């Protein structure tokens, strides 16, 4: 997926998140969302590996792929003067990046982490999708015959969240619709999708249809209709999606 498409999706989801909301951001596009949360708004980010209150993701591409670098970093980020403010070798997010946390963050075990996911306190969970369908079913964890991956926490996270937001490109790399009549890939959960945000539009799932709430200035209703297999309807007043500066 092109980087600009990913950024469009991320910034439009960020605009949906309100001050004080408790949100889980999955791996992939959702990790970009925190860059677009406007200043002064506190969104409490849940890491299903056991924390609430992620602040910055430490840039650790270099860190992780250079053995000398990571060894030194680990040694210098575990002592008494190292903590959640500057990063610690025992502090990651569910995407396995080292992170820092906001004042007021908390850590806990995995049973507690998923108890709160299923329990209904999570305002939203945002995750990627391979396919979604007219029933609101989501498939995002497995392509038969491809490399085995595992569902991780995705099935749990969509089960209890008040709102499930799918962040994905509108079509697959080969151009096939990903918003289909009925998912052909193995499901993550049934009837769970509330909102889908693609580079073309923002749609709410309702009554076996997708209702377009806003569209990109770079597309048209016809393009959306032609690229969507499930039934699409347009809201009485369709808004314009925000396009972030390149």
């Amino acid at each position, binding site marked *: 997926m092109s980087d600009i498409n990913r950024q469009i999706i991320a910034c439009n989801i960020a605009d949906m998140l309100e001050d004080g909301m408790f949100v889980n951001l999955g791996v992939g596009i959702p990790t970009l969302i925190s860059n677009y949360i406007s200043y002064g708004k506190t969104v409490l980010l849940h*890491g*299903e*590996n*056991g*924390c609430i209150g992620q602040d910055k993701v430490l840039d650790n591409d270099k860190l*992780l*792929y250079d*053995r000398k670098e*990571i*060894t030194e970093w*680990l*040694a210098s980020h*575990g002592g008494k003067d190292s903590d*959640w403010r500057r990063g*610690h*070798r*025992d*502090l*990651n*997010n*569910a995407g*396995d990046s080292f992170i820092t946390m906001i004042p007021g963050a908390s*850590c*806990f*075990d*995995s*049973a507690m*982490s*998923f*108890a709160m*996911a*299923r329990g209904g306190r999570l305002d939203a969970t945002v995750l990627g999708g391979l396919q979604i369908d007219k029933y609101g*079913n989501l498939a995002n964890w497995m392509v038969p015959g491809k*490399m*085995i*991956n*595992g*569902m*991780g*926490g*995705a*099935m*749990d*996270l969509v*089960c*209890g969240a008040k709102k499930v937001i799918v962040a994905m490109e509108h079509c697959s790399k080969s151009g096939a619709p990903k918003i289909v009549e009925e998912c052909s890939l*193995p*499901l*993550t*959960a*049934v*009837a769970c999708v509330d909102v889908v945000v693609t580079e073309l539009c923002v749609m709410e799932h309702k009554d076996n249809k997708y209702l377009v709430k806003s569209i990109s200035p770079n597309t048209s209703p016809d393009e959306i209709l032609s690229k969507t297999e499930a039934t699409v309807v347009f809201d009485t007043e369709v808004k314009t999606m925000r396009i972030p500066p390149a």
Partner: protein
Amino acid sequence: MNKIINLKEAVDLIHSGDTVMVGGFTYFGCPLHLLYELADREVDNLTIISEDLGYGGLPYLQGAGVLINNGQVKEAQVSFIGYYPEITEAVKDERLKLTLIPQGTLAERIRAGGSGLGGFYTPVGVGTVVEEGKEIKIINNKKYLLEYPLRADVALIKCKTADHLGNAAFKYTAENFNPLMAMAADLVILETEELVENGAIEPDSVDLPGVFVDKIVLCKDVVI
């Protein structure tokens, strides 16, 4: 009541055929000293229960995957693998029986195993492959799956600080599955970065009471 032993003595307690729970979320909170020592032993036919099998893309962050690459594991029950081609190959070649479990269900099944419960109903997995072969029950007009507890012969867990009674404090997100697994195994071996006197960990700061810990191994150096 002396629980402190060395690394070799600790790994001597693990036997071929054992079901072994391994704490950690990839690198974080993973008992790597214990795992690497186990990888040097002629112990096999293991069943591994773990969140994941390590960070496979990076040769120096292998986690429980090192045991699989060694052919020491016959079965694994995990939630996530990530980029780990060797494991896909091992499953295809039927060298490894792999069961994938939703991460929250895995945590809850281990907790149930440690809590003397017979099972629980969860909405997670309804209508997916996870449902296959499981009892379904409608409770308050909602579908739930019956999930059974998980227990192990041995749990290998890792903490930041422990006292001589085995009271353990985990740091930040390195807690994850560690205290749950310690409650659900017959023999619990704790790898700790620091060993302190009893009472040095405040009662409110103990994440895992020492009554769950059978053996303590002090491993001060950081490994990856």
